[in-house]
Structures are given as structure tokens and as C-alpha cells.
């Protein structure tokens, strides 16, 4: 493979855009949540201030090598997802390093950060981290079931594992989007994305008032800053993945911002309405209706 400096620079620029859009997006969402509760709410730019403050914490405590590597793994999971994701359809510069069969890799990368975090937080030694990790992994495993079924269904439907090809197949009319051609797979995936974004009703893993903070209990300062950076990237990238698979991709940045915001807002909207599930309830819930819909999608495909 030839080394292409322009491509690399465009990819880094894309990462910067995605990071800032992720921070801005969560700021907007929190502002909306505050206005729904009739509060003035937090400033939209609070995410950036929190990041600067976290990176500027003076004293840091470490519990060992894995404790360092946990956030690094998590960040590389998020950045890895970004690197192999075609962002803008038909654009030479914004396709990043996507290739034939990248869908499989992306499904793997989704779990990668989670596992790294589990190792790191486990070394933190705090009991709340261990509980949070076991809850998070069991919930995420069940989230993967309907999501994988949906992905397999659309892979069968389009006869390809390349995201760029899947997006290409959905062009032309809004009726070509997967949401209309394969509604069962879309519904199964959109239900599982609720868990992937980690909002209520599936936010037991990190909810501050259940077990304090969960896996990142011991993480502070720069560690927490890295985790928050990753969260901003990951939220956008997950939304972009679903946009590419089910909602016809994006042909420019504005379309990407709009669609990813709406997909993210879907999980927030559900979270505002429904109360939190306990972990065994959420595990059962994912294995019932979303899995059933996923199986139907595969049978129909």
C-alpha cells in the first residue's frame, strides 16, 4: 500500500471534526434535557471546559500498567472505529481507510475498547469498578446479539461486507434506504443502539446513583480526559455506522451532522421517557424482542 500523506492529513482532520462535533452534540443534548426540565441548563461549551480541566489535573495516581492501558485501549477502540469508517459517501478524502469487509472489523472494534477498559478498571481495585465491568460486559454481550443479527441480515441483503458498497446500494431514492427495504433489521439494530449509547433505560453500568460511576470509578485527571475524548468520538462514530447501514449514508458533512444527531437523539429521547432497567431486566429485554426481530430479518433476507 502506498503511503498517502494527503489521505492521512484528511483522516486526522476528520477525527478532529468528529471529536468536536461529539462534544458539541452532547452539549446540545444536555441543553435540550435541561430545557425539558425547565432549567436554564449547562453551557453548550461545557464539554470542552471539562476536558481542559481534566487534562490540567496536577496529581495523578496509577494502580499499575493495565490501569494506564485501559483508557488507551478504549481510545484506540474509538479511533479504530473511525479509521475504518467511510464518513462521506463518494468522497475520496473522507472515506478514511475503509476497505472490502470492513463491517466485520468494525463489529470487532466495538467490543475492543470495552475489553481493554475491563482490564484497566479491574486493576483499579475498586469493588464498584468490578461490579460495573461485569454488568457492562454482560449487557454489551446481549446488545451485540440483535446488532449482529441485523448486520448479517443486511450483509445477506446487499451481498457485501463493505460499508461503502452498502451505502452505494442505498442511493437514488429515500425508499432505497435499508430502513424501508429491510425494516426488521433496522428496528432490531435501532433497539440495540439504545444500549450501545448507554442512556437510560440501559445506563445502569455508569449511573452515578446506582454504583458510584461504575467502571471509571478510579479514573481521574488525564485518564478521565482520555475516556471522555473517546466517548465523544465513539458516540458520533456509532451514529455514523448506523447512518451508513440503515439511513443511506451522508453525501456532505451537514447531512452527516444532522443524521448522526437524530440517531443519537433517538436514544436520548427514549432515555428521557423510560426509567432505568436493572441489569437482568435489560439482558432479558435484549434477548427477547430485538433478537426475535433480528431472526425474522435473517429469515426474510
Amino acid at each position, binding site marked *: 500500500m502506498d503511503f498517502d500523506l494527503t489521505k492521512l492529513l484528511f483522516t486526522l482532520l476528520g477525527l478532529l471534526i468528529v471529536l468536536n462535533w461529539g462534544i458539541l452534540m452532547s452539549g446540545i443534548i444536555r441543553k435540550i434535557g435541561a430545557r425539558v426540565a425547565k432549567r436554564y441548563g449547562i*453551557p453548550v461549551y*461545557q464539554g470542552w471546559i471539562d476536558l*481542559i*480541566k481534566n487534562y490540567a*489535573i496536577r*496529581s495523578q*495516581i496509577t494502580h499499575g500498567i493495565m490501569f494506564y492501558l485501559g483508557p488507551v485501549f478504549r481510545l484506540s477502540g474509538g479511533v479504530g472505529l473511525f479509521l475504518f469508517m467511510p464518513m462521506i459517501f463518494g468522497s475520496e478524502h473522507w472515506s478514511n481507510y475503509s476497505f472490502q469487509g470492513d463491517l466485520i472489523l468494525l463489529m470487532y472494534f466495538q467490543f475492543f475498547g470495552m475489553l481493554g477498559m475491563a482490564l484497566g478498571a479491574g486493576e483499579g481495585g475498586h469493588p464498584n469498578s468490578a461490579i460495573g465491568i461485569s454488568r457492562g460486559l454482560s449487557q454489551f454481550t446481549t446488545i451485540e446479539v440483535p446488532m449482529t443479527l441485523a448486520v448479517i441480515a443486511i450483509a445477506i441483503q446487499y451481498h457485501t461486507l463493505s460499508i461503502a458498497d452498502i451505502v452505494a446500494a442505498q442511493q437514488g431514492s429515500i425508499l432505497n434506504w435499508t430502513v424501508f427495504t429491510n425494516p426488521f433489521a433496522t428496528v432490531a439494530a435501532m433497539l440495540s443502539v439504545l444500549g450501545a449509547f448507554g442512556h437510560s433505560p440501559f445506563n445502569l453500568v455508569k449511573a*452515578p446513583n446506582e454504583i*458510584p*460511576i461504575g467502571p471509571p470509578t478510579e479514573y481521574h485527571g488525564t485518564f478521565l480526559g482520555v475516556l471522555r475524548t473517546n466517548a465523544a468520538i465513539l458516540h458520533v462514530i456509532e451514529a455514523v455506522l448506523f447512518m451508513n447501514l440503515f439511513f443511506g449514508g451522508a453525501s456532505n458533512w451537514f447531512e452527516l451532522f444532522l443524521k448522526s444527531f437524530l440517531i443519537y437523539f433517538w436514544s436520548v429521547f427514549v432515555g428521557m421517557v423510560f426509567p432505568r432497567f436493572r441489569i437482568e431486566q435489560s439482558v432479558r429485554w435484549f434477548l427477547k424482542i430485538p433478537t426475535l426481530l433480528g431472526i425474522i430479518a435473517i429469515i426474510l433476507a
Partner: protein
Amino acid sequence: MTNETNNIVEDKLELEDKFLAPENRKRQVTTPDGTIIEVDPLRDYFSDARPQIYRPNSIPVIENFLNWARAESLWVLGFGTGCGSIELPPLTTPRFDAYRFGVQMRATPRQSNVFIISGYLSVKTLKRVVRSYEQMPNPKYVIALGSCTINGGMYYDSYNTINRLDQYMPVDVYIAGCMPRPEALLAGFNKLKELIKAGKAEKANEYVENFDWYKANQKKIIKDWNMPDYNW
């Protein structure tokens, strides 16, 4: 070593061990593969290193910028020590809405910057407060809420509460009253912001500089001291 000194050493050990919970005592443990190792929870689980002083950044522009970020992003440790903690929940409600000042609640001391000592502090709570305070990362600020933290307030002659908080940890902002209303707390947050932006909120380093004095005061009050001197 004579018998007498032996006895004194043993007595001292017994005195130190008296308050230790059984699971915190030094003991021998057999690992799954058969080797016998010695476990000393107080040494293994905690560090006994002394705290360090972290100087502010020497370039004024950078330090001012970082102080601005610190002031605009105050993460409060959700630890209510006394009756004043009932004034904290209303801060997040639409009526007072502390979020608009960048004040957010955190559930773990590792991620918090502001510690609100809300009201009277019993001796039992003081021990937990000291541990939580020392676990917070370096730029950390203490807000003392209510008269009880200033001079004991209505509990001034109680056998079980401390009277002056600043003997046990450095305090940045006092909010007087019994009880101060949430508005007073908001004013306190804004005062703290002013102090941080002016670079005057370096009490975490002050705690380290006068570490021995603070420790002596704490140990005078906490009779069942069964933890290392510094919990980080």
C-alpha cells in the same frame, strides 16, 4: 533488647491493632498454587508515601487559562456530612439550577474538585472526610457550609462533633448561617470561582506544607486511627 522495651513494643503493637478489623490484620495466605505469602492489608492496599506539593504552572498565561477552566468546571463530591446536605439536592432543580455555573455532582472523590462540608462534622464522619479529601486529585477546594464548621454552631459543646473545621483541613470558602439557603451556596460557588481565577485557591498545597500539624490535630480527635497516615 531488654524485657522492658520488649513489653513496651508489644503494648504499642496491641494498641495499634486494637481497632483493626480482622480482615485488615497482617496474616499469611495460601495462594491457589500452594505458596504461602504474607498479606499486610494496610501496606498493600494503601500507600504510606507522604503527599507532594504541586506547584502551579510557571507561565502566567497558561496558569490563568487553566484556572479559568478549573473555575468553570467545578465537580462536587456528593458526600453530605451533616444536616446541611439537605441543601445540596435543590441545587440541581429548576429553581436554583447550579448546572448553569458549571457545577456538577460526582460520586467518587477521584473525579471531584470541590468538597462541601455540609454542616456539623461528627468524629466518626471526620475520619471518612479526611480519607475522601486526601483521595481527591490536587487542585481541590473545600467549601464549609453552615456555622457548625466555623465555631461549632449549636453543637459547640457537643462531645461528639468538631468545632473548627480549619484545624483539620484547609478551607477555601465559608458560608455562614444555620442553615444557609441554596442561594447562599450559589454565592459561595461564585466566590470560589473568583478565588480560583485569581490563583488564590492553592489550599491543597497548604495542606501538604502543614501536613504534620493537620495530622496531629486529626489524630487528637480520631481515637481509633487504624489507617495509614496518608490515603491516596
